[in-house]
């Protein structure tokens, strides 16, 4: 897909907020693809981490928001320990999630999970899932 990069399509505010929340210098990414190759959730992602980083460098917030990437990321920290540029991509994913969750938008709704399913889950799944996927 051809993507037009112009001052008009760059969402600088989004880029700045991701940097602020994650504390990461996203411009440091030199697109080696190590993160994408390492990601265990890779096959399930609309955008692999390398591509997401590239879009982020150009402030393409719409494409990032439309992708499932940050919501399928399991915060496994593999990309983070392997990135040759020392970028904590896991934190970048968190920042992207936070920008949605902080608008009081839930990714999953605790009240809608069937009781039988909750009964099955260990507490650790509920606690971590709610922390990552609810506002």
């Amino acid at each position: 897909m051809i993507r037009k990069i112009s001052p008009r399509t760059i969402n600088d505010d989004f880029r700045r907020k991701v940097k602020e929340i994650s504390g990461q210098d996203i411009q440091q990414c030199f697109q080696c693809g190590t993160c994408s190759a390492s990601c265990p959730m890779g096959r399930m992602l609309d955008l692999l981490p390398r591509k997401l980083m590239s879009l982020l460098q150009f402030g393409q917030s719409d494409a990032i928001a439309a992708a499932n990437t940050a919501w399928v990321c399991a915060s496994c920290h593999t990309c983070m320990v392997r990135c040759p540029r020392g970028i904590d991509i896991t934190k970048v994913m968190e920042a992207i999630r936070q920008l949605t969750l902080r608008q009081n938008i839930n990714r999953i709704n605790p009240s809608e999970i069937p009781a039988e399913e909750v009964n099955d889950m260990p507490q650790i799944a509920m606690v971590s899932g709610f922390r990552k996927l609810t506002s």
Partner: protein
Amino acid sequence: MSTTTEQTAVEAKMIPIYVMGKKYEVPETLTIMKALEYAGYKYIRGCGCRGGVCGACSTVYRKPGDYKIYTGLACQTVVEPEMYLTQLPFYPANRATYDFHALEGNPEEIFGLYPELFRCVACNACSKVCPMDVEVMDYIAALKRGDIAAAAQISFDCIQCGLCASRCMGELPQYHIGQLARRINGAYLTPRAEHLATMVANIEAGRYTECLNKLKSADEDELKRLYTEERELEPAQAGEDWTPKENVCL
């Protein structure tokens, strides 16, 4: 109006308090509830027992120059000069519907009814705000690990005022969850009292019928006499093994 009341009213120092932002001068000896009535408010809601047990009159206040949130029961808390207050008699909180007798009394049932339990972040705002000094965060923590008995014990003093829910960062209805824990604890986890069954059996076997009938058929004067004259009172310093001499009806 009796003279003593008038004298008290005159003698008590008047202090300023702010109710929902409006200033009133009230006698410093009054509780918040009485002060509000003194100021002209009429309670239709937000007041129940006037004795500190119903949880209807929870009040939130602040003091000048202090960042802290203070809370208290309006019927129990004495006014302080310059306090800024409002009553918060009710706070909406999700209450799950369940068929109590269909429950088995395991933690998973509580988890299923109140999954938001797992959104607690241990901020402790709930314990800090509780007018009954219940360690709310701790009973929620106990429930998260499935310890219903501990949760029931820690939340025992809760009067369902709802202030904890008003402050909860995880949007939990703590007091409803605690109530369910106490119910389950009472019905399923606490050992049955065996002497109760014996007592019921005795009653059914007619052990007390005669005594009761005697009371039922007594007229007013006879009842008064039985109560004031005939009744054997327990002496003030009686030991634990004291029993009345007359014990046919025990």
